């Protein structure tokens, strides 16, 4: 008798728990409950929840306070680790527990749209105020899904103490770097798993973009990184890898590259704005330059754009859009975000406001020929194969570059087809 009672209770409880599905933690519920109370008290007409990482959360504080005052609403900024925002949002938004707005990267848009989690944002006439690449980056299948605020791309950073004028081609740059007698002629981070992002300018200079584009310039899910151009790039990677001239080395991870450059061990590094502070703190005088071409065509780096997305399950769609269009897309906010994160503002007027900074101007110049990183969901299937194959070419594990590159293209195609 006793036992059967316990078992019955146990079974009942399990079923009850299973029925509630992916219920969320109690912390989330408390927040929502609290928010409802505020509304009932009549103190404010609504509550907006924003997920952002710590840097962006800090940059938003002032403008959020202004918004709260103007509209008589409450805005709650929840700090999250940047790498967790997308996955947590995908898991929580369909349950209705997600935030109204998230701050994220443009290349999330494909996945978020495929899951039906973000609403198109109508920039209206304001679209013309943004840099074209920023709006294009947030455009997926013809609709704009986010309000962009920051643009970032990698560039060539020069240690002015070791080199003063930079040649026009990558081979000449390597020769110049070797002539200085520094430990490394040029630093490009990669690691044993490879780093296709930092290697991409070299690849595009051989005319092998990752995906093809249609006539409007949007990516289509058709691989373009194979063929003769891809093979030429693979050969080039092998020739400057460990089995070749030894310029590239898979042991050079991001940390090692940053430290070596900060120690003055190399005249050049390919890196982004996020690494400038450690260099200047180490007392290195740097100039930011466009990346020289290795294969003859322009060396176009990936351009990443950060921006605000609106949750399609949001109960506060009007408030969220009001905040994005009339507050986040203003010069003050975009400049504030630049000052805390170092990313070039997506709003043209804000970008001009910061252009007297030579570092910022250098990254803008290097990004002018850049291309947005594809936001296609298919892009997720590319990274792992791409990086590892490049690492194998550099380390000399892949002895036949053409075959290794062709196998990689087949595998990526297979992964895309299977997805």
């Amino acid at each position, binding site marked *: 008798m*006793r036992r059967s009672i*316990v078992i019955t*209770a*146990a079974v*009942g*409880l*399990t079923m*009850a*728990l*299973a*029925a*509630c599905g992916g*219920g969320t933690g*109690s912390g989330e519920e*408390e927040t*929502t409950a609290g928010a*409802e109370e505020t509304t009932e008290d009549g103190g404010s*007409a*609504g509550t907006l929840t924003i997920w952002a990482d710590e840097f962006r959360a800090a940059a938003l504080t002032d403008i959020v306070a202004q918004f709260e005052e103007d*509209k008589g609403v409450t805005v709650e900024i929840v700090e999250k680790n940047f790498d967790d925002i997308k996955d947590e949002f*995908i898991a929580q938004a*369909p349950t209705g527990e997600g935030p109204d707005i998230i701050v994220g990267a443009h290349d999330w848009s494909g*996945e978020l*749209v*495929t*899951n*039906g*989690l973000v*609403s198109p*944002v*109508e920039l*209206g006439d304001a679209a013309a105020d943004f840099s074209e690449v920023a709006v294009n980056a947030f455009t997926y*299948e013809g*609709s704009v899904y986010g309000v962009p605020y920051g643009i970032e791309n990698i560039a060539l950073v020069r240690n002015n103490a070791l080199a003063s004028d930079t040649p026009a081609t990558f081979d000449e740059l390597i020769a110049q770097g070797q002539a200085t007698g520094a430990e490394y002629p040029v630093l490009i981070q990669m690691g044993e*798993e490879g780093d296709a992002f930092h290697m991409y300018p070299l690849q595009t200079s051989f005319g092998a973009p990752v995906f093809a584009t249609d006539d409007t310039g949007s990516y289509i899910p058709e691989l373009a990184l194979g063929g003769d151009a891809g093979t030429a790039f693979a050969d080039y990677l092998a020739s400057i890898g460990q089995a070749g001239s030894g310029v590239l*080395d*898979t*042991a050079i991870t991001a940390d090692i590259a940053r430290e070596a450059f900060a120690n003055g061990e190399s005249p050049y590094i390919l890196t982004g704005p996020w690494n400038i502070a450690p260099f200047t703190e180490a007392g290195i005088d740097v100039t930011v330059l466009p990346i020289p071409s290795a294969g003859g065509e322009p060396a176009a780096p990936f351009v990443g754009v950060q921006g605000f997305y609106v949750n*399609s*399950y949001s*109960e506060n769609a*009007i408030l969220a859009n*009001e905040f994005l*269009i*009339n507050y986040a897309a203003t010069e003050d906010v975009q400049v504030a975000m630049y000052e805390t994160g170092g990313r070039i503002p997506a709003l043209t007027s804000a970008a001009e406001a910061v252009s007297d900074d030579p570092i910022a101007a250098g990254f803008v110049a290097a990004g002018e020929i850049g291309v947005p990183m594809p936001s296609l969901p298919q892009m997720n*299937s590319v*990274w*792992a*194969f791409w990086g*590892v194959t490049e690492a194998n070419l550099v*380390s000399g*594990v892949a002895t036949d570059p053409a075959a290794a590159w062709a*196998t990689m293209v*087949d*595998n990526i195609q*297979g*992964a*895309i087809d*299977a*997805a």
Partner: protein
Amino acid sequence: MGPFFLVKLSVLALINAFGLFVIYSAWQVSHWGILGSMVAILIVANWVYFSKRMIAAKYLFPGLVFLLVYQLFTMGYTAYISFTNYGTGHNATREDAIAANLAQNENRVPDSPSYPLTVVTGADGELGFAIIDGDDGVLVGTEEQTFEAAPDATVTDGDVTEVPGYSVLTFGEVLEQQNEITSLRVGFDDVDEGSIRTQDGSTGYLYRSVLTYDEATGAITNTDTGVVYSDNGEGSFEAEDGSTLVVGWRVAVGFDNFTKMFTDSRLSGPFLSVLVWTFVFAFLSVATTFFLGLFFAIVFNHPAVRGRKIIRSLLILPYAFPGFLSGLVWAGLLNRRFGFINQVLLGGAEIPWLTDPWLAKLSVIGANLWLGFPYMFLITTGALQAISSEVYEAAKIDGARAGRVFRSITLPLLMISVAPLLIASFAFNFNNFNLIYFVTEGGPNFPGSPIAVGATDILISMVYSVAIESGTQQYGLASAMSILIFVMVGLISWLGFRQTRKLEEVI
């Protein structure tokens, strides 16, 4: 009515207060599952602890609750997910997918102007829009009533502030009806022209919807091309030519995820080599740590060794570090070019510890040995001290040598107490994700393999790599693979424990 009863009463009062708080919170956000289970827990808790007859249940109840929440629910939910197509593109319900597809295909009419817009309500409380059209002045309309001219409306600073017959909503009132307003479409007389909608309550744009959903047939039609997308039973809207709409939903797919591991040629090849390595890794992990731990235990159990206590405490140190941290440190130490081991200990030899398949396997076993031997050292030290010294004396009298004593006495007696722990350790290492992920990330990858798995990947890290990390996320597949691992571990443990029982019977 002793003091213990009062203590019990106050503890139960606290539990009930917490439970009621949870029930109240769950009720506010309509989480009926949590509410129901909490009510059940509270009722059973009060019954068990106030009844005089439920002695055994009093001890079992807390454990049972935690077992239910942290084990059974997790297992049940994983099993449920493994029979669905949950993953990227199949993330929510059918209604959500329909809404998302329709919303994504409602596009602004190219080159159409933006209209200053005001939200109004009619006499019967029906929501409507008042817009300023450049040519026609103020227009007003509702869901039912297409736009008509409102020549008597007042316009201040480019905004409509008054419309006869309608009342203008304040911003606060707009916020209270956000969902109704964003879903409101007000059309023009000419239907094909599209309809006005707003996202921020102050600007309207002309939109045309390309897709329409038909409730009766459950299909979505593209009004421009005439293509009909119907429910294909697999959680997507599919046209006749096989193309699907972007957003799908979650449906049950039966055993698809389970058979995929063996029938999908991209998975099945690597799956077998990973499976073999998982067994080898788990076995070697247990064997190496056990014998090293045992060796140290025997050596430092000998009374002749000086400073035993200090050495013993030092030996346990690796056990005190978090495993993932040690993994990261080992990855750094073993770096081919900059690692301490190559750089300092081996004088700059560039040995590819983590990038050669065999050396990488050796490295993870080695790192695990460092992490795992203290545990074995602890348990064998305890077990050794439990063996009576009389049996050793008897062996000595019989003239047995040290090796013989170890094989015939120490090891069998030791195995009785530590064998269950070895089985548990095997099960743990079978799923030792942290070590693999932080030391090698499963690499070096099999060259040319169609999925991104490598020589040191074990099953659980392969699950992570295939179903979550690379490409589109496939939680259904990940759950199915986890269930398979669970069954394997369960089977091995069951067989192992049966053998252990035989061990006891022999002695």
